[in-house]
């Protein structure tokens, strides 16, 4: 069959994957702490039909060959960990990381998930939990007689207890960093998992050793740039149309030969 059919099929499939990435980014344009993806394209292998430099006759060489490309593929989606803008919410349990770092969330299976979405709540036990009810690690419990909760830039959580002059220190929010955050595996729910590509988590105190400070009363917005995504959407759509044009042209060529011979 016509090789161009398969080549443009890879083009259609790759643009399709890219559009899915763009659609997911746009869908999460308002998700707290969301990090956008970018599809990375690569050209596929080339097939040598005629080797350049091969002997044409005993005395002459072919000056140029025929290497046919076999199309394109998406090698991966790269998470872009640039920071989203900070939004002031004035909620005492909204925490943003200003710089590098991730919060640690204890998952139901006992492993740790990592997130930058610092929209925390209290459970009925007074523990700090994420919006789905998973515990922040290390666990911090706010007593029910606490009048106000303060989270310092280094992650120290303290509360003023009714009738007590000095605030009580309840614990520390520790954050972790990764050598290659782009290698983390996104599992949804704003959570990431450690992988062999991300490296081991390096735990630390916010504001020290390169970790960003935590800011109470703020949230990190999604880092999706809507204009950029819309432009990506347009270029993806046009590339898709052009590849489908090739498919129909190749099909017409085959149709012409089968009908006329």
């Amino acid at each position, binding site marked *: 069959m*016509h*090789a*161009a059919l398969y*080549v*443009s099929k890879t*083009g259609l499939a*790759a643009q399709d994957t*890219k559009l899915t990435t763009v659609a997911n980014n746009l869908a999460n344009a308002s998700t707290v702490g969301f990090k956008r993806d*970018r599809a*990375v*394209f*690569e*050209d596929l*292998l*080339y*097939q*040598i039909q005629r080797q*350049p430099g091969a002997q044409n006759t005993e005395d002459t060489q072919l000056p*140029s*060959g*025929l*290497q*046919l*490309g*076999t*199309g*394109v593929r998406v*090698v*991966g989606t*790269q998470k*872009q960990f*640039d920071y989203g803008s900070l939004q002031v919410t004035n909620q005492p349990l909204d925490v943003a990381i200003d*710089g*590098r770092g991730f919060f640690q969330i204890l998952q139901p299976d006992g492993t740790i998930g990592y997130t930058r979405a610092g929209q925390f709540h209290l459970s009925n036990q007074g523990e700090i939990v994420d919006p789905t009810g998973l515990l922040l690690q290390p666990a911090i419990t706010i007593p029910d007689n606490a009048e106000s909760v303060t989270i310092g830039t280094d992650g120290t959580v303290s509360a003023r207890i009714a009738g007590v002059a000095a605030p009580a220190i309840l614990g520390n929010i520790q954050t972790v*960093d*990764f*050598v*290659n955050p*782009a*290698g983390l595996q996104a599992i949804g729910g704003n959570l990431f998992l450690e992988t*062999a*590509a991300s*490296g081991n988590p*390096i735990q630390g105190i916010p504001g*020290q*050793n*390169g970790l960003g400070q935590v800011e109470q009363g703020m949230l990190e917005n999604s880092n999706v740039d809507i204009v950029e995504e819309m432009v990506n959407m347009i270029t993806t759509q046009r*590339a898709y149309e*052009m*590849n489908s*044009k*090739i498919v129909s*042209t*190749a099909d*017409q*060529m085959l149709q*012409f*030969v089968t009908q*006329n*011979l």
Partner: protein
Amino acid sequence: MDKALYIAMSGAKHNMRAQTVHANNLANVNTTGFKADFARARSMPIYFGEGHPTRAYALEEIPATDFRQGPLVETGRDLDVAVEGDGFIAVQSPDGSEAYTRAGSLFIDALGMLRTGNGLPVLGNGGPIAIPAAEKVEISGDGSITVIALGQGVDAPVQVDRIKLVNPPTDTIQRGIDGLIHLLDDAQGELPADGNVRIISGFVEGSNVNAVNELTSVMSLARQYEMQVKIMQTVKEDSEASARLLQPAS
């Protein structure tokens, strides 16, 4: 049988091959750093001995790759680099040899090694580049990599390495079957670094495929193909006519 049938067939077949070249260019219209291939047909006369020299087969070939600059696309990411003007980024291909690319969407892996988007180590002054855990990585115009180490202030930047940038004449290089740029003559070994090649961080280079050119070529090749098929059809009718004439009268 008239040889015109075979000549038209080779024409149609090579039209199809050229179609594949253009399809591949268009499939890569969004691929970072992709360089389009040219396609060209050459006549291959097969005139030997006595007779009228009319037989010439068409032969499709890719004489070269179009190494012109693609559009620069702003991404704002520190590790995205685009080569401005001529030149290539040196990478280590899977077989250990040096190859060149213009796809500069780089990342740092778990071990701190600087790699291209498809995982090949980027080469520096002395082999692959290792980048220590850092708060910020800056790549300057000449390929120098500066980092601000974890826990250090902005006043303590450290230069770690320099990306090897090369600028070979385009007639000494070709695209290999892995899509990377290789030297035509492997015996030349590795190219020396060229201090004049500039890169710009925060940008990637888009594909240099001219979509309108490619689509026009595809349309024109489709019509040529139909003409070749028409010739095959005519030869078929001619041979039917002569077969009819040669039949004994009934």
